[in-house]
């Protein structure tokens, strides 16, 4: 038997990133998204990516206070998916017909007001996450601990390294490996070629 959750409970669950609520959202909303994507020249991989991206957009939207829902959560979620899918089709069309990246139109025409509903950001995030998952397990743990601001000495104890210098060296190696993996990912070239030769400005 499957429990039914109200929208409010689901929103709170997603805000706190509770696994059971995420599972429920995924199982409840995916069939509709799947139907929509398959009707619009997509496949199962596209469905998985789209649901993941939409859930992150929804999560970020929920974190912003105040979050007021004017329709059901399912309708809201589907509209995010449709929006993202239109952006993705737009990108695919550009790649297919070799459109010039320098004259990219702004995508606001298809998007919500929020900056986080941006296809490029989603693709980047997904690409990076996919490659993080393909790192050796010790690298994944090390980088996770490092970004959780665990001191190097503590990491050395936890992951059984000789000392903090060894941890640092391994961290540099893992980051280097991850960057190389991302740069060699075919999707990277598909979506980010224009950035590679463009003017890169540091954000600080």
């Amino acid at each position, binding site marked *: 038997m499957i429990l039914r959750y109200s929208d409010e409970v689901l929103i709170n669950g997603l805000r706190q990133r509770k696994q059971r609520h995420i599972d429920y959202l995924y199982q409840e909303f995916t069939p509709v998204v799947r139907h929509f994507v398959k009707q619009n020249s997509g496949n199962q991989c596209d469905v998985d990516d789209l649901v993941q991206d939409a859930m992150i957009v929804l999560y970020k939207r929920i974190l912003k206070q105040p979050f007021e829902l004017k329709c059901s959560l399912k309708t809201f979620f589907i509209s995010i998916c449709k929006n993202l899918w239109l952006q993705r089709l737009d990108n695919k069309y550009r790649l297919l017909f070799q459109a010039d990246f320098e004259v990219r139109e702004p995508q606001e025409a298809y998007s919500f007001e929020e900056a986080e509903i941006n296809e490029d950001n989603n693709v980047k995030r997904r690409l990076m996450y996919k490659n993080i998952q393909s790192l050796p397990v010790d690298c994944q743990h090390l980088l996770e601990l490092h970004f959780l601001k665990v001191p190097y000495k503590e990491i050395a104890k936890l992951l059984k390294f000789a000392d903090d210098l060894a941890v640092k060296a391994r961290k540099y190696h893992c980051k280097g490996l991850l960057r190389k993996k991302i740069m060699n990912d075919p999707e990277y070239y598909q979506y980010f070629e224009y950035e590679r030769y463009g003017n*890169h400005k540091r954000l600080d």
Partner: protein
Amino acid sequence: MNDMEITNDWIDRYNENELNEEEKAFFIKRMELNPLLRTEVLIDECLNRLYQDEGTMDLMKKIHMAQQKPDRRDGRFSYLLIAASLLYLIVLGVILKMVVIDQEDIVAKGQSHRDEPGNSPAAKIVSEVFQKNPAAVKNLRPQTWNENSHNLYLAMNYIPLPDYELLVGSVTRSARIELRSPIAILNIQQGIPVKFKWVYQDKKVPVNIVVYDNRGRRVFETLILLDDSYKLVTKYWPGGIYYWKIITDEEMICMGKIILF
């Protein structure tokens, strides 16, 4: 300052503001000249941002876990999937069994032919057909052990070489050339040429392309002196995995993989 060499850790240290003023100035100057380094810095910056966004990282992990779980609502589909898998296994087993019986039959027939060489009228007709049209008979007969071993040999061409797999996609930050194509892992049909294209960063240097098979044996090597591209012909190569290396001045620039099918 010119003696400084940028190592792997510099990108991390630059993005985490750990470089001193002199190192930072040197690094920025290098970045202006080297687009590959700029790209790496950009990726590192994005990675740092993603890792620092703990909530999103945690959520992505949990969504991933949700995607791995079977869909409980769609139980009928999973039953169908199991049934289809079982059926597939049974059919595969029957086919394998038939192949084994056929081969035993061939061996047995071969032995009986040796015992009684072409005495019956049927054997005579068969031997006449064999002599007149050997190609047609070849099409009719089942696979022999030799053919099976040939297929097995072909299959072995697709076993990756672990030592080289680790290096696939490796790119050194060489200031000499920058490779534009092919991509690190290329799937192509047998016979389609592979186009190597690169850009010299300042002056032209000799470029060496070396190709190894999946057993680590060197199968091809060429030295290009002035051109900035090379078309690798794969027409007579058997299907399988090949690894290529681009070398200039005895330094490997990058390594990739070609899968010929």
